[in-house]
């Protein structure tokens, strides 16, 4: 599964819907589906904000690979390279606007990794190891 969207916030709803459906199709339970939606949305929002500095006319490519015990999302952009060291959420105790997105991504995904081999732009790899409790008898629509 691949989706390619313009880097405009109005397309984030598509990313959420696709993420949810991919989750449902693979029998992931509703609680984790909600977390995956939020995490992938946040990662794409950060691409719009930081890699593209708000430029809505670029492209974001989102790839899903799901296998037994494994939910992977790879997000690619052609924007400014991220400094992985500088990406971190705020301390949750320190209440202020912002700084939550990375927390939402990291509580959901076990791997959060920028591919250092990509020449231009970023390729962020997110992996969730699926535990038994993540699965469900839910059958999609």
């Amino acid at each position: 599964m691949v989706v390619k969207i313009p880097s405009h916030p109005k397309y984030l709803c598509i990313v959420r819907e696709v993420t949810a459906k991919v989750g449902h199709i693979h029998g992931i339970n509703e609680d984790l589906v909600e977390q995956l939606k939020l995490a992938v949305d946040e990662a794409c929002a950060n691409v719009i904000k930081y890699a593209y500095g708000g430029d809505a006319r670029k492209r974001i490519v989102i790839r899903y690979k799901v296998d037994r015990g494994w939910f992977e999302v790879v997000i690619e952009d052609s924007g400014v390279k991220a400094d992985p060291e500088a990406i971190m959420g705020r301390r949750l105790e320190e209440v202020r606007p912002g700084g939550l997105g990375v927390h939402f991504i990291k509580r959901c995904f076990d791997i959060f990794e920028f591919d250092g081999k990509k020449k231009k732009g970023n390729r962020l790899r997110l992996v969730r190891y699926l535990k038994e409790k993540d699965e469900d008898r839910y059958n999609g629509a």
Partner: protein
Amino acid sequence: MKIDITEHNGAKVFSLSGDIDLYSSPALRKELIFFIGEKVPLLLVDFRDVSYIDSSGIATLVEGLRGMMSHGGKMKLFGIPERIVEIFAFSKLDKVFDICGSLDDAVKD
């Protein structure tokens, strides 16, 4: 997201519905800033029909809360769906916001 603004016993009630995300939260921010400028004493945010909120929506509410407090006003959230309460709790904001069950509860205390 849609915002419906009404009055209830002198309080402003923001009834939000749909998804609050990077696309829609600027509209919410604009309305909040307007009523903060008006120094409304009590602002109640109805979450019953909110289907989704992301970090930009939460950031907007944190900013709104600060703005209200800056003139001695109060902001309360009510009717938050369980799935969204969980996001506030994870973010350690369930103690920062005044979260009520219903509009009645929000007006009472």
